[in-house]
């Protein structure tokens, strides 16, 4: 690993100041970033650790909206249970050690095309809170490993409206534990949402044809005959674009059945 300075602020204000330095990069749970540094794929001059900032941790439930601090680990979300589909998703990320360390803010900000949390945020119509604004999930995830975050801006929390029904189904890639394909569906005050992760080269996306079909009839049958094109799907040693496109259809049906 290249050498760097590590700072460990205890307040958000100090963290933002430290991130203003040249080549400074935020470090959350580090479950992706530390291995990346080990492989010399990143060379920050300063890492600003966010895990010592208490104000970024914790889960609050206010009037049907669940607000999760950016530095809250997956295990805490899994234990919470207020939004069952979200807690289940968090409890299936990686392995127990990763869940004790990895954070929701880190996952959302990294926007790995196969990560689970982006599907939950987009599929629930969540709002991403940063140190200086709030961004709808629809506008936040802009492409594979790309988000609307500016330089030096961090995810301080995520606000989830708890829907009437929701479910996540993940077809796990057994070596990495990431989703080969994962689908999050929800039905709430603002309608039906279907968010797909692991499949597209553009990262997490909403499957609008499925949303339209499910809006009038929220049942797996409503999806009969619908499919996503293989064009633009990820192809790698674990699955071809056509296979992933097929999984999107199958898993969406399963998620709807599970949501009930």
């Amino acid at each position: 690993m290249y050498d760097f300075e590590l700072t460990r602020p205890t307040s958000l204000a100090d963290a933002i100041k430290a991130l203003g330095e040249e080549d400074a990069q935020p470090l959350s749970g580090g479950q992706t970033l530390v291995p990346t540094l080990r492989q010399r794929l990143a060379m920050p001059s300063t890492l600003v650790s966010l895990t010592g900032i208490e104000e970024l941790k914790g889960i609050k439930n206010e009037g049907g909206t669940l607000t999760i601090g950016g530095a809250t680990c997956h295990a805490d979300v899994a234990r919470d249970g207020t939004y069952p589909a979200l807690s289940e998703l968090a409890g299936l990320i990686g392995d127990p050690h990763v869940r004790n360390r990895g954070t929701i803010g880190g996952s959302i900000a990294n926007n790995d095309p196969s990560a689970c949390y982006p599907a939950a945020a987009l599929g629930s119509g969540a709002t991403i809170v940063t140190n200086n604004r709030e961004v709808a999930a629809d506008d936040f995830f802009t492409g594979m490993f790309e988000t609307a975050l500016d330089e030096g801006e961090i995810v301080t929390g995520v606000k989830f409206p708890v829907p009437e029904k929701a479910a996540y189904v993940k077809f796990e890639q057994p070596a990495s534990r990431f989703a080969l394909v994962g689908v999050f569906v929800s039905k709430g005050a603002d309608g039906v949402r279907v968010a797909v992760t692991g499949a597209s080269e553009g990262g997490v996306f909403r499957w609008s044809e499925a949303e339209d079909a499910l809006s009038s009839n929220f049942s797996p049958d409503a999806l009969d005959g619908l499919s996503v094109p293989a064009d633009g799907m990820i192809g790698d040693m674990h699955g071809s674009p056509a296979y992933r496109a097929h999984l999107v259809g199958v898993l969406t049906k399963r998620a709807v059945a599970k949501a009930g």
Partner: protein
Amino acid sequence: MTDVTMTINGRAVSGAVEGRTLLSTFLRETAGLTGTHIGCDTAQCGACTVHVNGASMKSCTVFAQEADGAEVTTIEGMANADGSLNTIQQAFQDHHGLQCGFCTPGMVMTAAALLKENPKPSETEVRDYLKGNLCRCTGYHNIVKAIMAASGQDVSAIAAE
């Protein structure tokens, strides 16, 4: 260099570390506790699993500075006060839960974390909890068996002998 102090198995250990010094390195090189093994160094194998403030973590993914002030438990802190093997360790010996032993410190720390959360896990729950710990020797059956036995459950029907 930055000075850090943490409590490891009940003993305060201090040392000067670089930004990039990992907790696994600190445990092995500064505290001299080489029971924590480094298998992959990239967060995949779980051989480096320790408990930080009661939660299991892969110490190769935590920087030493991030554990400043923490309570850390390693495999060296697992034996009984008189030096005899604790229940989990003894069960690994009794049920042949190890061969080369490289993965074993991580397996024992993971088993301890599991049994604290879930004192009587099912076989499926044990296997699920071991997802982050790789073993290249045993084929896992006897590890699962040892953990079930350590939880006080009958293991005669579990997997292959």
